[in-house]
Structure formats: C-alpha cells, structure tokens
C-alpha cells in the first residue's frame, strides 16, 4: 500500500516528528511504500542540516535524511512555510537574495500541490501534528 505522511510540527518541540518517523519506518518494514512525506507549518524545521543535538540524543534531521536515502523517499518542505522559517535551498537563496542555504540532504522545497498529489496518488494520507 502507498502512504503519504504529513508532518506539521518541528523536531524536539513535540512528539509528532518522532511518531511520524517510527510510523514511516514500521510501514517500510512491512513492505509498504512511502510515496511522499510532506512537511508543513513548523514541520519544515525537520529539514535544516544545521542542527546539532547532543550526541546522546536522537538526531531527528539526520534520521529523516537516512530514511530518505535508504528508501528513496520524496521529502518535501512547504515553500511558504520554509520561507517564513528560514529554511533555504539553492533556488530559494538565489530567488530571495539569501547568503546561505541550510536544507538537509534528501529534502526539497516545493508547494502545497505536492501534498494534494500525495493524497491523490496514495492509498492513505496520515497527518502528524499538535
């Protein structure tokens, strides 16, 4: 079965980023496909590579990047939410005149259409948030 997962909360603030990760991993372990993970609102903070959590804590951002690499998952940050919160890729840096980028490996920035398409293309859409 194909799943799209929506994450509305940032890492470390609320449990939803952890729940979404464990759900995605369990779904993949059972042989399901994750069509897309869409990060919305504060959820876009899951996609900055500049975080440095303590070494004995989970690294939520790296965990997403590894999951995407291992399973070829499309992970999308909402562009309007990312602009508000300073999550920047090369295209956004150029478009908005920023002097740096911080997007983590495996993530890309795109629009809400990607969430809608995920809902259409997947058998189930599950929302995690606060």
């Amino acid at each position, binding site marked *: 079965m194909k*799943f799209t997962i929506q994450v509305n909360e940032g890492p470390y603030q609320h*449990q939803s980023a952890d729940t979404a990760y464990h*759900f995605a991993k*369990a779904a993949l*372990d*059972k042989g399901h496909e994750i069509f897309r993970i869409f990060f919305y609102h504060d959820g876009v903070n899951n996609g900055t590579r500049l975080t440095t959590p303590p070494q004995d804590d989970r690294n939520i951002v790296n965990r997403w990047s590894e999951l995407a690499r291992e399973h070829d998952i499309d992970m999308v940050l909402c562009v309007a939410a990312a602009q508000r919160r300073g999550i920047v890729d090369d295209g956004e840096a150029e478009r908005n005149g920023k002097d740096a980028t911080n997007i983590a490996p495996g993530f890309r920035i795109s629009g809400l259409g990607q969430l809608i398409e995920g809902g259409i293309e997947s058998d189930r859409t599950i*929302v995690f948030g*606060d």
Partner: protein
Amino acid sequence: MLHLVNKSPYDGSNLNTATSIMKSGDTLLLIEDGVYGAVKAGKAASLLEGHTVSVLGPDLAARGITKDKLADGINVVDYAGFVDMVEANDKVQSWL
C-alpha cells in the same frame, strides 16, 4: 474509519469530540499524550465505552503506564500494529 487522538483528555476536548463523532465500525487509536485517556481509574475512561479502542504501546511505556492500569477491552499495539490499522481503514482522521 480510524480516528487518531494524540492529546490527553485532561488537556483539551479531542477525545470527547472523536468519541462523540465515531460511528459503528470505526476504530480509535490513542497515541502520544492521548494514551492517558485509556487509564482505567481516569474519569475520561467512560468516554471509551462502546467503542473499539487501541493504544500505542511504546507511548504507554514512555509514560510509565502499565497494561494493568488500562480500562477493560483496550487493545495494545506497536508501530507495526498502527500501520495495520491504517491499512485496514480507508480513512484516517487525526484529531489534532
């Protein structure tokens, strides 16, 4: 339909709303702080009566709630069981 509740019943009305809207054949899964709603001695346990209810085991364990503290008839699932419940229900409603 699968209903997900992730808030404590003592921190908002999500469980109340979900259980009042649930129809016959629907299933409720309590996750995150939602697991507090499954405690037998809690005053929210009566909201679960007559409904099919599961609770996410790892979230129970993280809060120190043992199975003997749960209201009667509640099923404990792991993340794999959570995935199975999503597969078994054609719609999933998160009561955020």
